[in-house]
């Protein structure tokens, strides 16, 4: 299995990274992949029903209840395992939406320039000017609490990030002689845009990793405020909130366990993003 992996192009790609980017990338991949696997295998990993009372409340971590129980006697470990599904769903949907808008708009804006570019830039800049969390809260509050609405409101924040990076790279790539060669050959705009896109995928990848790292924290904040899933659905941000009143009484495990998971997942994506931006020497700011 290991030797099989070592012969793939992916492993060759990872091995071509210089240190310390290589260690960052590997650590990030390990964290993210294990959390994704945990989410997929949640029914097999979680020992108890995450959303019902299974034991005496407020019990500290023990052999049967690895992360203890919460204030209504639910198993915190099972809730952490199942909660990863909500975070990953919201983050994946929001990234897909912001990419679907940000990337093509950035390409069009950078390639055509002129009035289209001006108008789009002004719209994107004005979205970017808002404090991102406040904007997400406002959008989520208007749409109502649900994971899909949370995803939409998070997507709104990151559209300008994709847009700005893609537009900038498009401006750079557009002047390359191989793009001018396509114009001389008589290629259609669609062919040329496709060719530009092929040459900026690494930028999209970097922006994706870094913005997802940020989006995880935003998602946690939204569900902390009750703008995503509703109790008793297991979710890290929501559990952070339900555990918070008990923190001062010494029942630290209720909030601490999901909290550390949020940090770990966000860190994982941030490490991947930083390593990639180092490797491709792309200065991305999210």
């Amino acid at each position, binding site marked *: 299995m290991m030797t099989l992996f070592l012969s793939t192009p992916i492993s060759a790609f990872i091995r071509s990274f210089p240190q310390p980017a290589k260690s960052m990338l590997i650590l990030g991949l390990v964290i993210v992949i294990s959390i994704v696997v945990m989410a997929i295998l949640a029914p097999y990993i979680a020992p108890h029903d995450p959303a019902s009372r299974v034991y005496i409340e407020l019990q500290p971590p023990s052999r049967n209840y690895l992360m203890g129980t919460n204030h209504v006697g639910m198993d915190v470990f099972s809730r952490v395992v199942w909660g990863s599904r909500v975070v990953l769903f919201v983050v994946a949907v929001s990234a897909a939406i912001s990419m679907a808008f940000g990337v093509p708009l950035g390409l069009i804006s950078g390639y055509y320039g002129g009035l289209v570019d001006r108008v789009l830039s002004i719209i994107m800049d004005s979205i970017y000017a808002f404090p991102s969390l406040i904007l997400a809260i406002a959008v989520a509050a208007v749409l109502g609490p649900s994971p899909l609405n949370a995803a939409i409101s998070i997507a709104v924040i990151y559209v300008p990030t994709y847009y700005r990076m893609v537009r900038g790279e498009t401006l750079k790539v557009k002047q*390359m*002689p*191989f793009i*001018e*060669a*396509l*114009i*001389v*050959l*008589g*290629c*259609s705009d669609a*062919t040329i845009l496709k*060719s530009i896109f*092929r*040459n900026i995928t690494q930028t999209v990848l970097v922006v994706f990793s870094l913005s997802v790292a940020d989006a995880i924290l935003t998602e946690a904040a939204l569900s902390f405020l009750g703008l995503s899933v509703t109790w008793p659905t297991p979710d890290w941000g929501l559990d952070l909130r339900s555990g918070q009143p008990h923190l001062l009484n010494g029942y630290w495990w209720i909030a601490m366990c999901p909290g550390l998971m949020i940090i770990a997942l966000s860190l994982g994506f941030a490490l991947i993003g930083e390593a990639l931006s180092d490797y491709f020497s792309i200065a991305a700011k999210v």
Partner: protein
Amino acid sequence: MKALVIAKGLKKYFPVRRTITDVMLMKGRLYVRAVDGVNLEIGFGETLALVGESGSGKTTTGRMLIGLEKPTEGSILFEGIELTKLSKRALKKIRPHMQMIFQDPYASLDPRVKVGDQVAQPLIINGLCNADEAKEKVLEVLERVGLTPPSEIYERYPHQLSGGQRQRIVIARAMIMRPKFVVADEPVSMIDVSLRASILELLKEFKREYGLSMLFITHDLAVAKLVADRVTVMYLGKIVEEGAVGEVIHSPLHPYTKALISSVPTIGNRILEKLKVVGEIPNPINIPSGCRFHTRCPFVMNKCRSDEAPWINVSKGHGVSCWLYSTK
């Protein structure tokens, strides 16, 4: 029709970005006069070398002829069709007949696409043949430009080829359409000296075989001598001398041409006296009055500073723009 490409009064001014203070002080817009009234004719099957220093506007001229840049003023006739007035769509129809070979073989190929597919691209997008026929034609052309074995080269990516091989790919891509007109923008300046002659030879072969007309842009008169039939010397956006290649190189008229020839390093004896020109090409935002070469000319006269030199045909097909040859 006497020539394939006729350019008349070609001008390209690039506006200089104004700062906020410039706008508030109501300063007028400044322009870089990259090309400032150029007349060119390229006959059927003829290679015209466009020679000049960097900043003389030769690349901009080439880009205008190929339709990559819109002229500020002037006309370009290609087979009698006025290119400057064509719509984007109509221009696309003519594009297959005009091709360009770029200077930097490392930047003119898409790093993410197999070189074979890049050579096939013009055939497919112009709907000339299907994928299988295209591949066959590409293999033919690859062999023709000296890339063997072609089936192996086809599958390579640009980074797996050397600079010389890449330039052969670029030439193959331009030639596969059997164009009538090719603009070659310093095609050998970034290629190893030992490989230059073979690339130039390749271009000459294509020219003979297809009877194509070529605008060969270069700063190197020695290269121009190898490929061109006629030479046009450009200085600061204007043509200063034009003539058959042998005549211009062996009996140059304009002091600037003389200086360019003096700057070509040679081995062995040289018949011409060396002519040194001092300084650098002036800023094209502030073009000198009168003859634009007067700031660097060793033979400068009073008249040169105030009046632009007329075009004087010294012998048939050999003209110069210089007061030294004026009889008036």
